[in-house]
């Protein structure tokens, strides 16, 4: 029989307002095994924790039940507290009487009754708790960064600077990501390439960083400290070790009609290409969808012109297996597709462009060489209408429910740049709200309005109709209370951003959770924003939620700091709540082995004592506690109940059931 102490927390008035904490501690004092029961204002406070520790000594407690907030909040805190007082951390159970009781019930009687029942369940469980000690597992001192945008680069650089090996896996032929496509950056208006490309070069030259460009993560096994990752290097038909990046092939290639993805299809490139001049690595890649040699076996021009002999039409996808201690997800974002937004005539007129396309049209390295020209006729636009929140903050199926966060600022930037470069243009911005929380952001926006004379109109654009080379924009001015009709030369749509499409399958591989919008979920929204709930998986940049460059870089460095913290350790404390087979009951049937997602279960032939001094050789399951993550799939697959889960044993769960149903 355990000697159990019960500690009921008021959580200020968070619990005490709807739960009679005094009564709860009194009633629970009557439960079998409870030798001490009390309540206190803030159990998690220094004083509260000391009270628990003193009680452990004074009453020789063997088990502790804390009725407080969610165990997701303070379980670790209280476990540490008790451990310091000499009690095993796993002799502590939390009854969640805040999130799952006081906060959802308004009536004191109801709340109190439920709190008592939850407390009883915790007491019933503690009765069956056993001290658990965690094992240790080694940490592979190498990190993987998935995604080579600014987030990935920054994370990789920071980790590498701390002295750890980092691999970057980038699906494009070059690292750099979205930022390479951007012209200027808000609110400083410095050139994106000027600040990004040096970092790309740093990454490429860093002795601790290895870049797998044009590559994807194929398979992930293992767990924190010990991930085994298979990386697929897609065939680029160019030998990376030989290509000098001279670019001759990209000039000589006869296949000229390939939409240039880097410029979002606003112009064409060759079938063999280097995405842009500062690409890292600067290696040509053959676009297999367009290369006539690969498609029909006729051509071979690039091969002929390449003096380095780097062209290899027979190249195939190759697979690399590597072990990592930590994985950083930096898969970034994309603007949403606008094919569902017919009202803005995006697919009808080339002069209706997305902001990112507009970015390319303004960029000196873009299709127009930096001169703003209408895509339809190359004419200089005089009236430009910017539409905000296209697909953001949307209730319907077409768009996204969230705010894309960066559009207000880049639209202000675009509007400002237009007016600066081409003062003769009329610039209208239709917005729902202008959101500018950020250092120097609001000032930036006000400059656009006040200094640059951008027409900011609170209202919605209802329709854009291409007519006679113009775009007729119908809109409402909510403040003016009028309908507006504007004849525009260009319409720029601030498309919502969404996570990259590779994120979802990647999340499945990593067993990292995602929200309904496919953004990766952080371990805690406030306190652990750069970690995934899955140990060893970290989040960097827009894959976790919309963010601008400074935020992205900040998060990237934060993620790096977390990774460094992990890789600094020689070994990790394993999850002590692992599966454990009772060999005497094990049938050796392999059911558990088949459902284990970690391959933690193996079999051994062992000798057992049979009746009448005989020995029996039997096949029995063995669990590797360093690999077992404690999901419990095996415990249910096991027909004889030989497999049980420490910390969540059959008996413990049933005791909770019994206590609740009592």
């Amino acid at each position, binding site marked *: 029989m355990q000697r159990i102490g019960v500690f009921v927390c008021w959580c200020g008035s968070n619990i005490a307002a709807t739960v009679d904490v005094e009564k709860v501690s009194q009633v629970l004092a009557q439960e079998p095994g409870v030798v001490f029961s009390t309540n206190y204002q803030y159990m998690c406070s220094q004083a509260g924790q000391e009270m628990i520790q003193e009680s452990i000594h004074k009453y020789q407690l063997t088990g502790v039940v804390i009725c407080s907030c969610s165990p997701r909040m303070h379980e670790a805190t209280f476990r540490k507290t008790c451990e310091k007082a000499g009690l095993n951390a796993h002799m502590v159970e939390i009854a969640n009487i805040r999130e799952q009781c006081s906060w959802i019930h308004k009536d004191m009687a109801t709340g109190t009754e439920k709190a008592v029942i939850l407390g009883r369940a915790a007491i019933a469980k503690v009765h069956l708790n056993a001290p658990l000690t965690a094992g240790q597992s080694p940490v592979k001192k190498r990190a993987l960064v998935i995604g080579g945008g600014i987030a990935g680069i920054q994370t990789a650089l920071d980790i590498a600077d701390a002295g750890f090996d980092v691999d970057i896996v980038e699906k494009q032929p070059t690292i750099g990501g979205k930022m390479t496509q951007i012209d200027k950056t808000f609110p400083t208006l410095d050139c994106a390439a000027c600040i990004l490309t040096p970092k790309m070069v740093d990454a490429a030259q860093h002795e601790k960083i290895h870049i797998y460009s044009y590559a994807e993560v194929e398979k992930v096994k293992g767990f924190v400290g010990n991930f085994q990752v298979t990386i697929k290097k897609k065939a680029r038909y160019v030998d990376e070790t030989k290509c000098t990046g001279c670019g001759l092939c990209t000039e000589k290639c006869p296949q000229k009609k390939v939409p240039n993805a880097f410029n979002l299809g606003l112009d064409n490139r060759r079938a063999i290409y280097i995405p842009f001049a500062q690409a890292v690595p600067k290696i040509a890649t053959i676009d297999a969808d367009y290369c006539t040699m690969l498609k029909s076996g006729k051509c071979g021009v690039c091969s002929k012109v390449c003096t380095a002999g780097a062209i290899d039409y027979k190249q195939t996808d190759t697979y690399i297996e590597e072990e990592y201690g930590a994985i950083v997800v930096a898969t970034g974002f994309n603007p949403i597709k606008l094919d569902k937004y017919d009202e803005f005539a995006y697919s009808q007129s080339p002069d209706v462009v997305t902001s990112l396309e507009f970015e390319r049209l303004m960029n000196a390295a873009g299709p127009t060489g930096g001169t703003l020209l209408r895509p339809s006729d190359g004419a200089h636009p005089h009236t430009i209408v910017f539409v905000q929140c296209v697909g953001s903050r949307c209730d319907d199926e077409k768009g996204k429910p969230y705010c894309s966060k960066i559009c207000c600022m880049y639209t202000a930037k675009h509007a400002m740049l237009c007016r600066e470069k081409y003062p003769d243009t009329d610039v209208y911005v239709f917005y729902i709200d202008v959101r500018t929380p950020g250092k120097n952001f609001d000032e930036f926006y006000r400059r656009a309005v006040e200094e640059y004379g951008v027409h900011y109109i609170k209202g919605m654009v209802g329709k854009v109709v291409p007519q006679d080379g113009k775009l007729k924009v119908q809109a409402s001015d909510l403040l003016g209370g009028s309908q507006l009709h504007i004849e525009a030369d260009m319409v720029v749509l601030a498309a919502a951003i969404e996570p990259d499409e590779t994120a979802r399958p990647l999340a499945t591989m990593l067993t990292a959770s995602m929200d309904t919008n496919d953004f990766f979920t952080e371990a805690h929204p406030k306190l652990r924003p750069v970690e995934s709930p899955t140990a060893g998986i970290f989040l960097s940049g827009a894959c976790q939620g919309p963010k601008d460059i400074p935020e992205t870089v900040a998060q990237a460095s934060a993620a790096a700091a977390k990774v460094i913290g992990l890789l600094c350790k020689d070994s990790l404390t394993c999850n002590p709540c692992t599966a454990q087979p*009772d060999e*005497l*009951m*094990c*049938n*050796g*049937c*392999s*059911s558990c082995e*088949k*459902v284990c997602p970690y391959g933690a279960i193996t*079999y051994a032939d062992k000798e057992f004592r049979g009746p009448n001094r005989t020995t*029996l*050789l*039997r*096949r029995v399951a063995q669990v590797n506690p360093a690999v077992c993550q404690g999901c419990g799939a095996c415990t249910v*697959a096991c*027909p*004889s*109940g*030989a497999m049980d889960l420490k910390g969540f044993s*059959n*008996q413990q769960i*049933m005791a909770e059931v019994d206590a609740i149903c009592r």
Partner: protein
Amino acid sequence: MQKRLKEKALELLSNCTVTRVLGWKTGEFFYDLTPAVFETAEEVEKEFVYSGFSGANLSKYLIQESRKQGKVAVFLKPCDSYSFQQLLKEHRILRENVYVVGISCNGLLDMEKIRAQGCEGVTAVTEDGDTLTVDTLYGTTKLSRNDCLLERCAVCKSKKIVAFDELIGEQGEELESNRFDRVAELEAMTPEERFAFWREELSRCIRCNACRNVCPACSCEKCVFDNEKSGVRNKAIADSFEENLFHIIRAFHVAGRCTDCGECSRVCPQNIPLHLLNRKFIKDINEFYGVYQAGADMDTKSPLTDFTLDDCEPSIVHERGGVQG
């Protein structure tokens, strides 16, 4: 058949292929055969019997027998061979210590069914094609053989012997079986009717554990219901709930592993149609996850240790229609 089996047993013993033969042993009457291990030719000559009453599935005995010294020969009927292979798949039988003689089968007889047709004090049964001549203390009756088959034989799913070293008789085929008809009939009832049906059936349970102990899938080293530590040990039928619990959990534990050998129903002293619970699982598995026959091969994953990304949701049970009870 009896003669061929006996000869085979003698041959295997005399040429030292095996040291023991697992078969059926003669009883007091013509029908009360007991599974037995024969070690000598003399025993085989004297006591080995194969007849329409050799219903007992011998595969489960191999868990113990295959771990003893020397090789053991076993006679397996088609449905027994499924149980055997399933046990092999679960590493319960050491294959190298077993010599399997597969025997073709044309259905086995059920003494309970013969008695139920009004035959009291039965002293002999002679088979003549489709007719059975039943001699009793009170006279002689003729019965149709089909009416006296074990339930599992009346709805035979397969005449194929899936694992063997040697065959006696013809290899058979998997059959189109109407074994799910009764399950479907129950499914078509209202929940109230189904509840009443099972209450009536299970209330007869005396928790003798015969179903469990005969079941080749219930071969746990220690059953959860016998295990004090499991927290669900239950020995008595102290409440109707415990009857339900025992049979639900037993069916669940063998789901995906039960080959539908029908032994549970054959041995139930209270004639509870326990096979219906297992068959319900098999029918559901077939419908939800694709046709699966436990023991049919060595490789296919059992449906409960497998999944697909687009498996149906549990709510399918609610959605399948029918009136809510």
